[in-house]
């Protein structure tokens, strides 16, 4: 096989775990194990010679592309600006605040059925929700609402651009009706 090396390179990149020699051989059935081994070694040497930012590491009995340790500072800088996604708990809490605001913590909790102190704190930290005031009832509970940043993150001009549940259900119901039809 002439492009054996290229295939191995692609396989290693696409593999979730370090890719073992045996696995490569199992995929490239017609290629001799010795040749596979030679190709892998060539690949390792090539990446080294090129002084590439990547190297082909032998890890846990397999092969994997890694960034060079001496560049780790740069890579860490990249990871530092990683896009944060919201946890399901945070997302649910945010959804309740967004749709039911202005709302106090106990109301959010009665909908979620669990304590929401942590997700509320996280959302405040991320500046997605804010304290809009206090309610004039015993305990003077804090009232929460969404922020301008919330609108920015979700690309909304204002809250009335949030899709309503009715609209969401419409998409769903019609979908179900169609599925029922095609299943029958």
């Amino acid at each position, binding site marked *: 096989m002439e492009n054996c090396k290229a295939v191995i390179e*692609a396989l290693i*990149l*696409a*593999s*979730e775990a*370090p890719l073992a020699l045996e696995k490569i051989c199992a995929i490239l059935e017609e290629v001799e194990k010795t040749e596979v081994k030679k190709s892998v070694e060539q690949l390792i040497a090539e990446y080294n010679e090129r002084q590439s930012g990547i190297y082909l590491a032998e890890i846990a009995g397999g092969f*994997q*592309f*890694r*960034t060079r340790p001496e560049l*780790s500072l740069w*890579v*860490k800088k990249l*990871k*530092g*600006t*990683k*896009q*944060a*996604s*919201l946890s*399901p708990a945070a*997302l*649910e809490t*945010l*959804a*309740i605040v*967004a*749709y*039911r*605001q*202005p709302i106090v913590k106990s109301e959010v909790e009665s*909908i979620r*059925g669990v304590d929401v102190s942590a997700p509320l704190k996280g959302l405040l930290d*991320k*500046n*997605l929700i804010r*304290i*809009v*005031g*206090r*309610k*004039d009832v015993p305990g003077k509970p804090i*009232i929460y*609402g*969404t922020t301008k940043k919330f609108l920015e*993150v*979700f*690309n*909304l001009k*204002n*809250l*009335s651009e*949030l*899709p*309503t*549940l*009715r609209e*969401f259900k419409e998409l769903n119901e019609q979908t179900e009706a169609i599925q029922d*039809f095609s299943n029958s």
Partner: protein
Amino acid sequence: MADETTDYAIKLDIFEGPLDLLLYLIKKNEIDIYNIPIALVTEQYLQYLKIIKSLNLDLAGEYLVMASTLIHIKSRMLLPVPDEPSDEETEEDPRAELVRQLLEHQAFKEAATALEMRPLLERDVFTRAAQISDKAENLSDNDDDLIEVNIFELIEAFHRLVSRIDKKELMEIDLEKLSITDIINDIMERLSRDKNITFEELLGEKRDRRRIVYTFLAILELIKMRMIKAYQTAAFGVIRIFPAVES
């Protein structure tokens, strides 16, 4: 005849609606799309509908609408063409709109095929799948983090919650309520700055009917929620709004 029926039946599930069926008929009969023999196409189209019915399949309403459109075009085609075209207005071909629709539909079918033929991720091309185990030590929680989440996920989360508890009251969220909420947020923000504010000031320059009604409803809602207090010195006097609790 039996053969023909099965032939039709097999074809049925591949049609994505009436336009698709029409395009199929045009192709099958090798018809010039710009000059559709409407009588022939209408006849064949109706035949298909009959078979769909005979198979006891539910017929989507769109197919019937198209059937009546075809019949309408056919009847218009039968009308004699006036000897003298009505001056500037050249009588439009009754088929023009349908042809436009068919061509547009066809163009998008082709575009869909072209899209599908591109090197697709996870089908033709793959990216690095492994976790690079450079432990992200400084999991920064700073404000500048870009948050990757979309509205659809948000409403889906809300829908999940609502279906879990199934409270009718929770369902009543419409655009109007959300618009009022915008104004509520606005009022509370201004109160945190200005300590008190009048109804007039709240309305500002934008005094359309809707704005006035929504602002009024927002104030009522805030009073009900015990978030603000409203005072009026005299009947028809200035309404002044204070936060219910000093922050």
